[in-house]
């Protein structure tokens, strides 16, 4: 039934949503292909086998990207994830050394991360006035501090028995298990954010927290869940990191939070909430990983790599903005 005035409203999305070919994800895919070609040209060692072998360390960081994307969508931020990784890795190493079987150790690592995430979530949902930045900054100091206390004066722990963790680092052909796990989790996180009511509520909260609350979304519960998941994922990251490092120390997970945030924002996820897609974050993660591996193989100074990443980060957002501005200017001129 149309309204009294007989107006009808269209449900055709064509005019209002951009097609894939004008989306940011498409730009990222192009960039991904370009960077792989570029790396292949500059280094003859840039082969699938080598790239996949070098990848696990970066792949385990991607466990942090997924929940970080959720947190950014909510308009929050969590800078304690690196420290959570450190604490979980430490605790799981000690658990392993205490003779727990690998299954139990993995569980302990996950639970440690979960506990950290839940504490963040609890503080943030009880004291809603506090910005996530300051809360997670202090818990970052605390979690790493606790890891330091557990690690003691040596500052480092190594696994007595590496067999369990080595199994985690196993491969199917060229592909490490980790690769499949990242892929599966990536798909799950992407589908949840794009297709489910929970995912929609993330966007709603990030766009207008108050309106979301009035619409019956349990804002604080969603935030609590997301921060808890983030902690658990940091635990997972820690477990896989341990399977490549065979131990933990006080610098484990240093800077992971910034890496995860960089991957997400480069992927088009707005740092103020409510905008962006996880798929973009995943592609951008692979762009950054491939670039780092490729440039590492020609032994480029890591500081120069950082400069390149910095320029890429800014110009990736700047370039389309400038081009639309120029287009608008032209249109205005043309009209006159």
């Amino acid at each position, binding site marked *: 039934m149309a309204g009294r005035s007989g107006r009808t409203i269209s449900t055709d999305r064509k005019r209002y949503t951009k097609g894939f070919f004008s989306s940011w994800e498409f730009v990222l895919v192009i960039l991904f292909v370009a960077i792989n070609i570029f790396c292949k040209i500059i280094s003859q*060692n*840039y*082969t699938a086998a*080598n790239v996949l*072998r*070098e990848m696990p*360390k*970066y792949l385990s960081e991607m466990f942090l990207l997924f929940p970080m994307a959720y947190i950014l969508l909510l308009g929050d931020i969590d800078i304690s994830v690196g420290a959570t990784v450190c604490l979980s890795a430490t605790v799981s190493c000690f658990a392993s050394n205490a003779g727990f079987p690998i299954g139990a150790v993995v569980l302990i690592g996950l639970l440690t991360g979960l506990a950290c995430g839940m504490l963040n979530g609890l503080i943030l949902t009880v004291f809603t006035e506090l910005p996530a930045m300051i809360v997670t900054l202090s818990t970052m100091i605390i979690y790493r501090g606790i890891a*330091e206390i557990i*690690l003691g*004066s*040596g*500052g*480092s*722990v*190594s*696994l007595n028995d*590496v067999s369990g963790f*080595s199994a985690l*680092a196993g491969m199917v052909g060229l592909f490490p298990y980790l690769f499949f796990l990242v892929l599966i989790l990536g798909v799950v996180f992407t589908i949840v954010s794009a297709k489910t009511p929970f995912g929609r509520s993330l966007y709603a909260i990030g766009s207008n927290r108050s309106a979301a609350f009035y619409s019956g979304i349990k804002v604080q519960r969603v935030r609590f869940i997301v921060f808890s998941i983030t902690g658990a994922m940091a635990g997972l990251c820690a477990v896989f*990191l341990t399977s*490549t*490092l*065979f*131990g*933990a*120390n*006080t*610098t*484990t997970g*240093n*800077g992971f939070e910034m890496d995860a945030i960089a991957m997400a924002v480069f992927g088009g996820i707005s740092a103020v909430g409510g905008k962006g897609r996880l798929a973009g974050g995943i592609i951008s993660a692979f762009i950054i990983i491939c670039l*780092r*591996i490729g440039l*590492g*193989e020609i*032994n480029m*100074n*890591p*500081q120069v*790599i*950082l400069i390149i990443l910095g320029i890429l980060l800014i110009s990736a957002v700047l370039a389309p903005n400038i081009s639309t501005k120029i287009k608008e200017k032209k249109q205005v001129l043309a009209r006159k």
Partner: protein
Amino acid sequence: SGNAAATNASGAAESSNAATSAVAGASATGKTFAIVTKSAGNPYNEKEAEGFQQVIEQQGGTCIVKHPEAATADAQVSMIQSLISQKVDSISIAANDENALQASLQQAMKAGIKVSCFDSKTNKNSRQVFVNQAGTKEIGQALMDAVYDISGGSGDWAILSATSQATNQNAWIAAMKTVMKGSKYSKLNLVEVAYGDDEPQKSTDQTQALLSKYPNLKVLCSPTTVGISAAAKVLQDKKSKVKLTGLGLPSEMAAYIGTDADHSCPYMFLWNPVELGQLSAYTSIALVNGTLTGMTGDTFDAGNMDNSPYKVVDAADGGTEIILGAPFKFDSSNIDEWKNVY
């Protein structure tokens, strides 16, 4: 023994600048040698890499220098992985963590790459040999003697270390504590080990805290380059009676070294990082050429370095090591000559 060390090192200083002639049978032609330091942006690490590169190129090899962006184990893991992809012949590494590199380094060794470490060792399972800058015991002894000497044999003293987790620092502090058990040092009282995390600001805070907490403090010993220069500045600015010793870079410490009341550090120690790099290079070449297997008792030529030929000895951790020499003492007599070297 201090005297002998001095002659040793000053000789080495000349050789580090002089070209090292090629040694027969030690040629590195056609081979690729990689050095991975602890982190970028540190002149000490740079000098190690410089010595390493000098020798490798002298011997006709290709040298890859890698400084990780941060002093963490996982940055080094990525670098090792990248070097495996590049199929280098040897990796020489100053480890940021004793154990964390095990998986990657074993992977490297399995791929036929020779692995040695220098400056800061990995565990015995992930290396063939460790090039030690100076025996841990010797460093402990030298520092303890300096504390004894400067304090006049008795009184309170304190240590300002880097992080509480720094492997080298902890080993040297442990060695000092062992030495201190001797009856000669019974009147010395170690009041605290403070940690400045290798940050100038925190080291400054910690030094100031030590001064106000222990009014009777006589000597401060800082076995870390950032800590010692921060502490030296605090003491010197305050015109404090407390004196300082430890391990530091001559270029950083030149302004503070002197025996008069205006200077806070009568003398300090270090070894020559350029030589450490050179010895690592010779070690790598020998490993790649098969003249060295890393077993105890092996000997190998290190060009015209002073102590050449060097001998592989047992290390405390059950692995093997090669010791460069004793630590070298820097005081007002020689600091000007060294401050421009490193």
